[in-house]
């Protein structure tokens, strides 16, 4: 619906689909590659796109993650703009050689001759008792790879805008879709792709900055409501992109609040919250009144049992407790 504005309610999954549909209409070099994408299993994101754009552009692949990713890379450097879908990030590991050794490095290794305008959609995070191999969150690993950009949208509008943006880039973009968000609803405006992606301050407050992305933003917003009731006002920064990081927005928020909590769903040891915490410390300098705090996953694979699973990942309550500690305002 390019050139037209339309506001309607949509789920996160519908928003990703709308972005693909609109971008594919504008750019016939966009092709989709992945398993079960013609019928749109399991989350319905690509449902119907084959009917609209035909089997040459919406291609079911065999269960061959390595060759599919490599095929996406090869097609990207030869004039197409492929979107490779990997339903669950545990399966991305099979395609990681092609993503990291080829997609991320080809432009550099060839002195800028080859470009890889590839978008990799990957479902990640715990979705509820799917077990350890369906529930990984690889954004921290991928943000560590020079040559990859990593998007992590938090709501339907963000998913739409970031996907439209990703499909205008000439270098590879990993589009991390937190599976807990697929059914989340919000307003959706179909519009032209943004020319750049900045972090957003989605809640303003002067007492502490909560830096989050994806599902973590929803948790932080809920924590913000509860904290406000107790007289603590937080800034919630939706990072939107993990690589490159919007340092200016992070620095501005932390300079204003002097306190920072970094939230991520991967394990703390070597995880993205650690990277973020050090970036905050570097950027904030003397503005920090207390050391940066962080929340991440416990050091365990995702457990099957629901109660155990919930105990592994950051929660609204954990964010509230951590912010209170930062502010020296325990609930007791």
């Amino acid at each position, binding site marked *: 619906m390019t050139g037209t504005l339309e506001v309607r309610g949509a789920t996160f999954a519908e928003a990703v689909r709308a972005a693909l549909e609109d971008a594919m209409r504008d750019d016939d070099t966009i092709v989709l590659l992945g398993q079960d994408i013609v019928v749109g299993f399991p989350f319905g994101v690509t449902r119907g796109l084959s009917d609209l754009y035909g089997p040459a552009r919406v291609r079911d692949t065999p269960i061959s993650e390595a*060759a599919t990713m*490599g095929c996406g890379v*090869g097609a990207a450097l030869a004039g*197409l703009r492929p979107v490779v879908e990997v339903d669950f990030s545990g399966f991305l590991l099979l395609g990681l050689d092609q993503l990291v050794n080829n997609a991320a490095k080809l432009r550099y290794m*060839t002195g800028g001759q*080859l470009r890889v305008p590839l978008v990799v959609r990957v479902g990640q995070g715990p979705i509820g008792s799917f077990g350890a191999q369906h529930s990984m969150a690889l954004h921290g690993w991928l943000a560590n790879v020079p040559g990859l950009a990593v998007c992590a949208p938090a709501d339907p509008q963000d998913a739409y805008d970031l996907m439209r943006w990703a499909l205008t880039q000439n270098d*590879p973009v990993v589009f991390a879709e937190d599976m807990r968000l697929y059914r989340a609803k919000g307003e959706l405006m179909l519009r032209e792709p943004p020319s750049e992606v900045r972090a957003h301050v989605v809640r303003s407050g002067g007492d502490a900055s909560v830096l989050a992305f994806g599902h973590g933003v929803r948790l932080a917003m809920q924590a913000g409501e509860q904290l406000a009731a107790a007289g603590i006002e937080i800034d919630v920064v939706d990072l939107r992109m993990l690589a490159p990081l919007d340092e200016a927005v992070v620095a501005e928020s932390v300079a204003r609040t002097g306190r920072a909590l970094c939230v991520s769903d991967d394990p703390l040891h070597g995880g993205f919250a650690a990277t973020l915490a050090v970036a905050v410390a570097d950027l904030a300098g003397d503005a920090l009144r207390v050391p940066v705090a962080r929340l991440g996953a416990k050091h365990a694979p995702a457990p099957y049992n629901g109660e155990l699973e919930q105990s592994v990942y950051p929660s609204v309550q954990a964010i509230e407790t951590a912010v209170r500690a930062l502010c020296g305002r325990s609930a007791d």
Partner: protein
Amino acid sequence: MSSLAATRETTLALYERILLIRRFEEAAYRRYEQGEIAGTIHASIGQEAVAVGVISALAPDDTVFTHHRGHGHALAKGVDPGRLMAELFGRRDGVSGGKGGSMHVADVECGFLGSFAVVGGSIPLAVGVALADRVLARDRVCAVFFGDGAVNQGVFYESLNLAAIWRLPVFFVCENNGFAISVRNDYATGGDGICSRAAAFGVPAEAVDGQDVGAVRDAAARLVDHCRSTGPTLLECRTYRFMGHSRGDPPHGLYRSQDEVAEWRERDPLVLQAAGLEPEDVEPMERRVAEAVGRALAVARSSPPPAVDDVTKDVWG
């Protein structure tokens, strides 16, 4: 000598191209031993007829991917020897600006889409290029060279299958030099050989004497035709590496006998191809090639290093 290669002009041209690769790599290896070239290099000496025979059967617009032992494929595809040598020297005028090195050479203008160090890693890229060619209605074949070591990588089979089900114009070329570094192919590869593995995917395959450039060229021409009109094909070229895998591996190695090496050296592609030539045919080619390699070394030595300020250029965005 076979039919396509039978004209005298072709025989001379193929010989000269093999000679260029041979002398280029001999010079590069000496410069490496003298410390002018850093890191590691993998010479294809002994295997040149595979690169020359296959690439001579491609159309100019067809594209090529290769592996870590890829200088020969680059030169056969028309990469400038000076810019290739400058890349080995890590200089600014190298084809990859000094950021790629011996194992990451590419020259898009020539349709040489690059050499890759992860064994088998470039195979699915060829499937992707061929897919793009089909979707964008370009009449091109994408040839991908890989060694016998790569046939035990899973991604090779995933790629054969993908090319087969989508009938893509991918020309798979297995350069079987008998060894994955020190491990013999007949030890590491089960079943009835590489061609039978392709056949299992419905991909037509032939094996050929990789030392005979005419035979390679003929077989490649047949299979490339089929590829262009119908779908993927595979050519296994049986060849031999006269040098070690890299510097840490002496030419005669601990894993093969001097007799075995000597036997294969009798089937040096230059010797076989020279059979129909006179000394007066060869002498001017030797002179031209020596001049070309000398010029390449001069280009490499006179090229400045890449700017340190550019070290994070061409990463993303």
